[in-house]
């Protein structure tokens, strides 16, 4: 009987080295380098241009248009490209035949293939998503109090575009099961307890 369990001499035994590209991809910390770059590029350029616009150009109009275009490209790329590539989430607005509009939030089921995103990418994504609206809110107050009101429209546009993406992706992440306010309050109370018990 043992003979039957042994491999026939003519059978092929394949040695599986694995596709070398696949192995490299498996080990890589960042699988979508272009997407990661662009996710941060537009946001950071908009902030940098706003801070140093006097150095770049004397014209208010040129700065305004440049920052506005950067913010719009950032909004589009984060909403349509980097979200689904880096964290597998997506949100959009859909209008039915009877004219009702509703917002759809989609999350990719956990994939195990090589195109899945890594932890590093996800961390970069969320950090970029959260920090920038905070910076723009800070700009809002500084513009308001220094009375440079001609920039106010731009800052408000920046805050709304970036906060819209932030809100949309948090909604996707939560999967619409719990309300955002409940999760935020629970998170904040956890943070408070951790600090108090220190």
């Amino acid at each position, binding site marked *: 009987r043992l003979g039957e369990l042994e491999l026939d001499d003519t059978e092929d035994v394949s040695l599986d080295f694995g596709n070398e590209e696949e192995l490299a991809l498996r080990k890589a910390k960042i699988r979508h380098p272009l997407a990661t770059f662009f996710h941060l590029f537009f946001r950071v350029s908009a902030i940098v241009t706003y801070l140093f616009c006097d150095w770049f150009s004397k014209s208010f*109009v040129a700065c*305004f*248009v440049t920052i*506005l275009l950067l913010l719009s490209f950032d909004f589009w790329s984060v909403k349509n490209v980097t979200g*689904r590539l880096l964290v597998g989430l997506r949100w959009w*607005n859909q*209008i039915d035949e009877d004219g009702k*509009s509703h917002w759809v939030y989609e999350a990719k089921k956990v994939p195990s293939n090589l195109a899945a995103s890594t932890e590093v990418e996800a961390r970069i994504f969320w950090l970029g998503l959260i920090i920038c609206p905070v910076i723009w809110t800070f700009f809002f107050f500084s513009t308001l109090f220094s009375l440079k009101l*001609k920039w106010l*429209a731009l800052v408000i546009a920046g805050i709304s575009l970036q906060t819209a993406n932030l809100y949309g992706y948090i909604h996707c992440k939560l999967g619409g099961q719990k309300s955002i306010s409940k999760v935020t309050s629970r998170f904040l109370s956890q943070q408070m307890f951790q600090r108090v018990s220190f």
Partner: protein
Amino acid sequence: MAAAEEGSGHGGVAKPLFAGLSDVSISEDIPVEGEITVPMGSRSPDEDYSTLDEPVKDTIMRDLKAVGKKFVHVMYPKKSSALLRDWDLWGPLVLCVSLALMLQRGAVDSKEDAGPQFAEVFVIIWFGAVVITLNSKLLGGTISFFQSLCVLGYCVLPLTVAMVVCRLVLLADTGTIGFIVRLIVVIAMFGWSTLASTAFLADSQPPNRKTLVVYPIFLFYFVISWMILTFTP
């Protein structure tokens, strides 16, 4: 077999139609075969995820084509679901920025800051559109907030064309004839904008409120036309 049963039924007392069939038995040798098909739902869940993995160029081209299609629909206004259902705000942004750029007064030559005029036009267009949308929603309109912004923004296209024409005319002739030409062009484009936007928006309102909705749109495009007409370089 069934026919024979029916035949015997006719001759005698009228029996209920299928009474004899209870005696009919199917021989076990006859194979019973057939198909049971369950009609598939129109969209399986996997189809929705197909655009989740598409390459970026596809996304860009798709969005650009959608924007271009909407521009065409504005120039030839007829019932189109493209403007209403697949709204986007890229067209309005481009139109608003180009109109604001063209409405600057002598920014290139003078040392004065052209800032206020640029931001003014911007704020007028966006704030005006938001106010009209709120107005139509308060009057009970069924259209959504962003849909309305989309339509109002895209319908600024004829006025942007009027601005281009006006600037060209001003390069050639700043006298009375030039003014009359500009007046005619602006009035024509203003009419076109207002008609195009009411064609899309008025349907979503109850019939007795149509005038209440059309009037702010009229005012909005009137203000923009006024800015275009009174522009001097």
